[in-house]
């Protein structure tokens, strides 16, 4: 009989792990609380570094799920350890017994409104990175200006911010800001685009090339300094103040649109599942792996594994690689 494996979370991590487990001859059961699969990636427009269409990636992953049992709009109500398996109760009333569980619950975007000084939800033309992706995907947004003359990006919103409860760097948002800044320049060549950063963390393959292109080919202004204050002018534009720490002088600028690069924090529904399975939470709020060098996929509890952004910020290729590795790791666990 095929061994059953429960996968919690139908983002790209859960989908890819399900496809691989199926190929390895197991029986994956994928549980997703929303209607659509793909998690956050399903909301993005184009993916760096190759500007791959996010929609086509999700479609491709979904096509790989034929034969996999997928529960949409479903959550795990309770989960209990039996002798060498887990008994699971789903919100749709079904009960399952599975040999292993993969947590692929992903992340949650930091709520930008918590940083009140940036005026999200207060001023007319302040949006987040996620709002901008949605708009690029064709969802109308009345906060978007008609023909902007100036657009600004604020890095590290809710990340590297002990006061906001997140000391960690969200890792992908510098690159997302550079990508979105270029996209805005392409759409509005007449607009000046400013990125306000603390450090530019462009660690991945081709990321630095994007940065060089943003400087040389797109004339994007990089200002090293954290935005201290955002206000609204009488005509409804956004005024931003910061210190240009390289120049050693305060700067201000009036913009038609301000984009806040909200960071990644742990998904609260993973934190809610953790006590039932006696899983530990790490100091950054994400699920704690056995270790962060060779044991990222391991929870430390028998039969429970992790993949993707539930253990920390990850890019798409990192998430997919982890999902494949987790499928193989679970397969080995089931063979043992």
């Amino acid at each position: 009989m095929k061994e059953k494996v429960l996968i919690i979370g139908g983002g790209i991590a859960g989908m890819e792990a399900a496809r691989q487990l199926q190929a390895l001859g197991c029986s994956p059961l994928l549980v997703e609380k929303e209607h659509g699969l793909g998690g956050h990636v399903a909301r993005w427009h184009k993916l760096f570094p190759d500007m791959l269409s996010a929609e086509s990636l999700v479609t491709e992953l979904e096509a790989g799920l034929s034969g996999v049992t997928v529960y949409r709009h479903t959550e795990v109500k309770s989960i209990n350890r039996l002798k060498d398996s887990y008994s699971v109760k789903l919100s749709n009333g079904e009960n399952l017994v599975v040999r292993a569980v993969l947590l692929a619950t992903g992340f949650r975007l930091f709520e930008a409104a918590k940083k009140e000084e940036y005026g999200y939800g207060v001023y007319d033309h302040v949006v987040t990175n996620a709002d901008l992706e949605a708009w690029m995907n064709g969802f109308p947004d009345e906060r978007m200006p008609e023909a902007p003359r100036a657009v600004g990006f604020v890095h590290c919103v809710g990340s590297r911010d002990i006061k906001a409860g997140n000391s960690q760097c969200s890792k992908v948002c510098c690159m997302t800001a550079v990508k979105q800044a270029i996209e805005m320049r392409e759409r509005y060549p007449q607009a000046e685009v400013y990125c306000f950063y603390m450090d530019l963390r462009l660690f991945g393959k081709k990321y630095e090339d994007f940065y060089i292109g943003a400087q040389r080919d797109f004339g994007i202004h990089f200002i090293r300094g954290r935005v201290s204050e955002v206000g609204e002018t009488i005509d409804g534009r956004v005024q931003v103040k910061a210190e240009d720490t390289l120049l050693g002088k305060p700067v201000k600028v009036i913009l038609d649109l301000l984009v806040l690069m909200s960071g990644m924090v742990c998904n609260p529904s993973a934190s809610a599942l953790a006590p039932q399975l006696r899983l530990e939470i790490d100091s950054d709020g994400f699920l704690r792996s056995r270790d962060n060098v060779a044991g990222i996929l391991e929870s430390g509890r028998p039969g429970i594994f992790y993949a993707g952004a539930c253990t920390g910020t990850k890019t798409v290729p990192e998430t997919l690689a982890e999902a494949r590795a987790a499928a193989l790791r679970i397969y080995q666990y089931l063979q043992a």
Partner: protein
Amino acid sequence: MKDFGFTLSPSSAVSLDKVDSRLWHKLLETSPDAAVCISCGSCSASCPAARWSGMSIRKVLLALQRGQSVAPMLSCCMLCGKCTMVCPRGINTRKLILALCRICEKP
């Protein structure tokens, strides 16, 4: 004017949307690489003129982008080219100074 016992000094804040960047854009026409500077400071640290004159390519490039004056710094360069050797972005800084001097001569 009536003496109130204090004076008001103008704000030192730079308004990015009102910056006069004509010189910067003129430079970019012939030296587009100037845009890829990352303000690392290698050029200034290696510059033999820096320690007595305050010359700094890093500061020149930044000042141009923020509409600040650069002429006093430029006049201190000896065109020795040490800065060009160390720039990690491969900017030909020596050539860039020459180009700037030419632009400043006949704007």
